[in-house]
């Protein structure tokens, strides 16, 4: 079968990098499967419960980089109890036992303990990169272990984790001999930082390219750090409160001017008035700006900042920018590809918000836009139809109207036609989140047109089971479906049970599915784990099949029922 010796094929496989392609290659024949598995270095596990660590290690003994995802997406919004699962420990133990030459670990929504971090830091001498996104369960003590023991550490990237800050000395735990740091992000830490230790660490890390500080780092330390790292490419400031007439301000401004390589800017977790002009010198080169944690940057100061960011490709902002501000973005940021607009005051009916006008302006001014997350006060079908016409290249389109069942603000009709226009025009759309008043019709459109759709998020939408059925029947590439507060029930759930084996997972909460329906599904599909999450204090939930299930999460798996379910999770 092979026309070339194995070594040549191996060489060819080296250029095959995407996991999808590698998976395809491994299915061609036994020989290719074998060559591929020994040469695979990067493995992505989208659901840590779909497979066991032992089987991953057995198949890919050359594993160097592992990506793991734990809790379902809705866990980000408090819909999943913290102890649901997604524990890192068994993976670390297996990797250590298997003597895997692990170099990189990327985790999302996992429960990570200090013990795991400690074990990680001691078990893999070549360990270089740790990226934790939306994880929890650990403290700065775990970080100290990583800092102290991973001699070759290049990357420690903590994105939006819930970390118990013991205000420790973890930064000082980087040994004096450690000079390999390329990327350090601790913006999500809430506690104090040993500032001199930070300065020294930056001073001895000539390869440092990414540095994101937390709120506890004051401007004068920022100045000292920047002075030692003018080669930075990505900067996240901490506190930016200083007196514009002070020496510190002038020094900072002079130092910023020298940082000509900064392309990505974030932070400003605290901002003082009239401090922002000091950062102006680097704005014209920025390709990425994240001000979603900077409610202190608003009004005319924000507009003035945006006006200078002519090369921006990615912008994350709060809705206090307003429709007018988005108009400025539209006329300034012609290279914009990704926009996220977050709600600045989620609890009150504030005066800061954006509407369909801002979105239309953006779509008209930024033809390269392909990724959108937009929290707004209102939307109209006409606007969505215009947006679809202006930007047919959307890959990710997530709209969230703050009042989740609000109709078209002008016509009072459902927003079916607007979203229909989006899916029809955007042939490559892979991710979609819906919002507003929506009937079954929008799902008919999605099923008909969204051929590349992989992930769909639904909340407070639809009239009947037909809605869900349209999607399950139509979207052939659907991998993740998450639904809350929508009237879909057993008929939709059970119509095509084989479909779920082609998907990674399905989440349904506050819908109409009953315990009986879930039981039937679990019975028909032994390769699925059907989990019921019941947090109420009601004693016997297992009795009544007619009872509606509050939260159901099902996923395909090769390893059957997991053994670490907490009390409130019941696998059927």
């Amino acid at each position, binding site marked *: 079968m092979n026309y070339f010796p194995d070594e040549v094929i191996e060489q060819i496989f080296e250029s095959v990098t995407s996991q999808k392609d590698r998976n395809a290659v491994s299915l061609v024949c036994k020989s290719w499967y074998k060559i591929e598995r020994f040469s695979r270095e990067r493995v992505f596990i989208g659901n840590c419960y779909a497979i066991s660590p032992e089987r991953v290690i057995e198949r890919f003994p050359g594993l160097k980089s592992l990506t793991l995802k734990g809790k379902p997406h809705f866990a*980000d919004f408090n819909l999943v109890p913290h102890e649901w699962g997604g524990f890192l420990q068994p993976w670390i133990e297996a990797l250590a036992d298997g003597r895997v030459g692990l170099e990189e670990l990327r985790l999302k929504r996992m429960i990570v303990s200090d013990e795991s971090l400690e074990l990680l830091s001691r078990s893999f001498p070549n360990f270089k990169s740790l990226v934790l996104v939306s994880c929890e369960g650990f403290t700065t003590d775990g970080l100290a272990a990583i800092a102290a023991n991973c001699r070759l550490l290049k990357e420690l990237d903590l994105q939006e984790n819930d970390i118990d800050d013991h205000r420790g000395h973890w930064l000082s735990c980087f040994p004096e001999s450690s000079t390999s740091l390329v990327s350090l992000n601790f913006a999500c830490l809430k506690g104090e930082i040993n500032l001199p230790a930070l300065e020294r660490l930056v001073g001895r890390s000539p390869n440092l390219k990414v540095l994101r500080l937390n709120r506890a780092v004051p401007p004068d330390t920022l100045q000292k750090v920047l002075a030692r790292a003018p080669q930075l490419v990505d900067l996240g400031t901490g506190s930016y409160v200083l007196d514009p007439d002070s020496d510190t301000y002038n020094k900072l401004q002079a130092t910023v001017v020298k940082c000509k390589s900064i392309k990505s800017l974030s932070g400003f977790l605290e901002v003082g008035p009239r401090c922002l002009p000091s950062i102006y010198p680097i704005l014209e080169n920025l390709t990425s700006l994240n001000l979603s944690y900077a409610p202190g940057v608003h009004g005319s100061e924000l507009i003035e900042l945006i006006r200078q960011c002519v090369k921006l490709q990615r912008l994350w902002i709060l809705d206090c920018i307003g429709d007018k501000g988005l108009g400025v973005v539209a006329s300034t940021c012609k290279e914009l590809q990704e926009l996220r607009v977050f*709600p*600045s005051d989620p609890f*009150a009916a504030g005066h800061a918000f954006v509407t369909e006008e801002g979105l239309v302006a953006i779509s008209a001014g930024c033809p390269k836009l392909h990724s959108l997350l937009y929290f707004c006060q209102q939307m109209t079908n006409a606007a969505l139809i215009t947006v679809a016409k202006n930007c047919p290249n959307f890959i990710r389109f997530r709209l969230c109207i703050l*009042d*989740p069942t609000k109709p078209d603000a002008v016509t009072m009709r459902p927003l079916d*036609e607007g979203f229909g226009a989006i899916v029809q025009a955007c042939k490559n759309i892979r991710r979609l989140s819906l919002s507003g*008043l929506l009937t079954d019709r929008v799902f008919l459109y999605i099923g008909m047109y969204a051929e590349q759709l992989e992930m769909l998020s639904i*909340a407070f939408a639809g009239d009947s089971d037909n809605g869900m059925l349209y999607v399950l029947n139509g979207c052939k590439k659907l991998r993740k479906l998450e639904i809350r507060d929508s009237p879909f029930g057993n008929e939709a759930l059970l119509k095509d049970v084989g479909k779920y084996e082609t998907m990674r997972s399905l989440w349904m909460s506050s819908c109409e599915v009953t315990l009986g329906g879930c039981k039937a599904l679990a019975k028909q599909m032994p390769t699925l784990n059907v989990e019921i999450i019941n947090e109420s204090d009601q004693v016997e939930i297992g009795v009544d099949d007619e009872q509606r299930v509050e939260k159901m999460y099902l996923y395909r798996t090769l390893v059957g029922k997991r053994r670490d379910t907490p009390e409130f999770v019941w696998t059927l």
Partner: protein
Amino acid sequence: MGRKAAAHSSSSSIDSSNHPDHHLPSPTASSSSSSLSRKINGNYCNSLSITRTDLSTDLRLGLSISTSHHSDLSSTSTPREQALINWPPIKSILRSTLAGRAADNRRHPSLFVKVYLEGIPIGRKLNLFDHDGYSALISSLCLMFKTTILCPENNHVHSDKYHVLTYEDQEGDWMLVGDVPWEIFLTTVKRLKITRADRC
């Protein structure tokens, strides 16, 4: 798509009312037990009301701890008081960061509106929350602009020597200040203008 996506002007049968002051849900479909009507009765009707109807209700939105979305739904409860829990969908860490800031703002809440005196192009800004009623507001403005503004309780005097206070509401109309209760005024006012009394 083949179908005309144009909006229809006639209201569908599920429109309860287009009256802008209609805050409470109408019991059009309250007898039906389907979740559709529940949702429509619940959320759709209230969407027709103006967004700044009741600040206290909105504040309660994110703080509701009701665990069941489906139970205890009576047609008399304001729909937005229902458990809209874990909404909007933003990450907890962002939510707590912004809530912290919002709480800071609410400790010193402000509602700044622009105020113009007729004939003077440069306006001023005033924090309405600093005042507890129309009298306080008028006193502030009299001091700020050094003019006499007639109180709403007095009879209107048509004269160019005096001024009256007007405001622009959410619909863009200019109205005389003082006709509605203070709290409702706060939810509808967009900006203020002090005009000559003979204009009204």
